[in-house]
């Protein structure tokens, strides 16, 4: 440890500490305009100049990069220093008189109108003051090295290599973040982000995926994280006190032995851009239900505010029901949840904005407990409900009252009128549809799908959670569109089924099994390769094949193939099937 005095205050700091940091520790303010803890001291503004006294000798140094040494005394406010600072500040102020941080610093240092006139005077409010922070953060933190200085003296300026946008720039925004004047700006052209599932994605590279998630821990989005692009940064690791940030974690494939599996793989939403009449993906401010849900979330990109693309509060919103569902061109089934979430949207929008809300519906299906009451409440809140399927959403391009607004065209089938409703925002209630990989998943588990494409249950009424494959259960929208209470009920039922097997400790297997009669098997080994469950073993000593009763699932392929008819399929024996044939063909 090193002991020194700063303005008469004694302080102990570790070796290698800079005078600036030591002064911070004892609460002595030293002005600086170029220093940032993210990178090495740069000492370009010179405002942190202090006087260091060692014995009888004294010298002026920059505090930000001068390391402490034993017994020195630092003076930050001596007459000499005050004179130096004033002089430096006057130079800075004379060149960039209108930059906010410069003016504030001048005020702090009691510097008024400068005594000099700059040859390179820049009167912009967001002028570059050549502090170098952007260059340093790009070089040292991001390690992309795409910003640098060019020219010398009063011609010095911050440039990109050869003055052009470099493809080495990863558009991380670190330079804009550290720029004290706002000279560097990130131009956000489109905030449709990275996750295909939610076009309104997370705002940062390190984020908590869902606040309700368990465990609720942040994750790093490797696609946008600076570290994974350049190998640099690691700022999060530096600031994380428990050292919980780990860049080496990899996706792992873990094999777990289980006896039963519950598939609740969820759903995809219908891609509304297939229905070009609604303009989704083409018109601004036409949102899918999930995007709007993200917008309503306090964790979302607008922090829960309902805003149009140009950042204004909408004056009116149209909510379009049955987009892709109850539609023979797409999905004939009802997605069940849309009516109620559309009403919820209306309720939340009422709560947060003064917008007029229009609901365009085919039939209002408020089917659950308390749902009808909610519907009535929404009507009382002044939401306008229009019974009619929307024909088209278009944009007003002409000038006038509705310029740049959206027009929803539909027939009000109750009033018998064609309506054209101007709105600022359209929310589409996309159909719930099976996940795109549902075929691959169901083949993995040997289960079927129903005509609507969702997993097929064993029985639609009596056994809606189990499947034709023993030990495979289904719940939620993977089985068909359903709301949260129904999903919870189905999932609980499936869980109870699974638990009942676990607590029983044994499994009853279907008696439909094949067995080989030793008396007739001569070990030709035709059957050996046919069994998908490798239930048939060839016993070398006896030169015959045998079936493992537990592995056999009773498909009967080996029974049909056995040239000696030594294999009998219990429940579906040759004699039984021939008897069926005789019966069926008796008349």
């Amino acid at each position, binding site marked *: 440890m090193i002991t020194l005095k700063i303005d008469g205050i004694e302080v102990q700091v570790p070796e290698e500490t800079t005078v600036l940091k030591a002064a911070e520790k004892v609460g002595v303010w030293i002005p600086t305009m170029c220093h940032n803890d993210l990178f090495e001291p740069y000492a370009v503004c010179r405002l942190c100049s202090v006087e260091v006294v060692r014995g009888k000798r004294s010298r002026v140094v920059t505090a930000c990069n001068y390391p402490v040494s034993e017994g020195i005394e630092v003076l930050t406010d001596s007459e000499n220093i005050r004179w130096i600072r004033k002089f430096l500040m006057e130079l800075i102020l004379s060149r960039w008189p209108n930059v906010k941080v410069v003016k504030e610093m001048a005020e702090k240092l009691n510097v008024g109108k400068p005594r000099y006139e700059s040859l390179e005077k820049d009167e912009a409010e967001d002028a570059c003051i050549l502090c170098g922070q952007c260059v340093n953060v790009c070089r040292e933190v991001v390690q992309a090295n795409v910003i640098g200085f060019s020219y010398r003296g009063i011609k010095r300026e911050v440039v990109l290599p050869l003055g052009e946008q470099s493809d080495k720039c990863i558009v991380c925004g670190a330079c804009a973040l550290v720029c004290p004047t706002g000279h560097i700006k990130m131009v956000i052209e489109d905030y449709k982000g990275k996750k295909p599932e939610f076009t309104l994605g997370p705002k940062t590279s390190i984020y908590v995926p869902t606040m309700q998630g368990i465990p609720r821990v942040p994750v790093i989005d490797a696609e946008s994280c600076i570290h994974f692009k350049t190998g640099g940064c690691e700022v999060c690791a530096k600031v994380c006190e428990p050292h919980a940030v780990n860049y080496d974690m990899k996706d792992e494939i873990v094999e777990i032995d289980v006896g039963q599996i519950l598939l609740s793989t969820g759903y995809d939403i219908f891609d509304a851009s297939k229905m070009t009449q609604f303009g989704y993906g083409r018109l601004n401010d036409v949102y899918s239900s999930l995007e709007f849900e993200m917008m309503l979330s306090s964790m979302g990109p607008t922090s829960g505010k309902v805003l149009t693309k140009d950042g204004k509060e909408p004056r009116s919103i149209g909510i379009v029901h049955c987009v892709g569902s109850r539609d023979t061109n797409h999905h004939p089934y009802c997605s069940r949840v849309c009516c109620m979430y559309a009403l919820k949207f209306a309720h939340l929008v009422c709560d947060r904005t003064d917008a007029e809300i229009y609901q365009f519906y085919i039939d209002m299906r408020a089917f659950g407990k308390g749902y009808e009451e909610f519907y009535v409440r929404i009507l009382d809140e002044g939401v306008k409900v229009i019974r009619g399927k929307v024909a088209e959403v278009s944009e007003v391009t002409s000038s006038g009252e509705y310029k740049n607004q959206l027009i929803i065209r539909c027939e009000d089938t109750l009033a018998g009128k064609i309506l054209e409703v101007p709105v600022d925002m359209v929310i589409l209630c996309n159909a719930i549809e099976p996940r795109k990989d549902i075929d691959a998943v169901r083949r993995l588990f040997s289960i079927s799908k*129903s005509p609507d494409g969702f997993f097929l249950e064993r029985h639609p009424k009596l056994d809606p959670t189990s499947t*034709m494959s023993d030990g495979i259960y289904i719940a939620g929208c993977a089985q068909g569109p359903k709301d949260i209470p129904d999903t919870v009920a189905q999932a609980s039922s499936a869980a109870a089924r699974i638990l009942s097997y676990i607590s029983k400790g044994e499994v009853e297997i279907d008696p439909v099994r094949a067995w080989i009669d030793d008396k007739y098997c001569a070990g030709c080994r035709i059957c050996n390769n046919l069994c*998908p469950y490798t239930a048939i073993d060839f016993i070398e000593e006896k030169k015959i094949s045998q079936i493992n009763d537990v592995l056999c*699932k009773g498909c009967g*392929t080996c029974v049909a193939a056995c040239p000696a008819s030594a294999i009998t399929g219990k429940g579906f024996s040759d004699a039984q099937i021939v008897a069926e044939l005789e019966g*069926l063909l008796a008349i």
Partner: protein
Amino acid sequence: MEFEPRIIAFFCNWCTYTGADLAGVSRLKSPANIRVIRTMCSGRVDPTFILKAFELGADGILIGGCHPGDCHYSEGNYKALRRVHLLRKMLQSFGIDEKRLRLEWISASEGDVYQHVATEFTAQIRSLGPLNWKQRFEQKEPKEQLIAV
């Protein structure tokens, strides 16, 4: 009286049997000529049964299994496919039109496909006429006259 084909169908428990059931539940009308035998898998269908059915008077035979890749037992349906291919080749030698034996992949959700296949196959067998194996076979038994070419 119009000829009513007698068609024996072997349907796998998981796909076609359920699909045919769905056609029924969905009130899709399909011909009553199809007489269904349920097996666990189309791979259980032994060619012996098919020949036996023809012998016993079936005019056509329909085997229904899961789509390739969808078999509840991985690939029982492929075994059915191979057997049917070889059997078709043999049926020609027996003087049975190979169109009388049909293999179709119908999934549990394809009630409409079942309806279509059942209707079409019944119409096809109707146009092929009765097979009437036993009677025809016995008619050819010793007659005391001889041929003069």
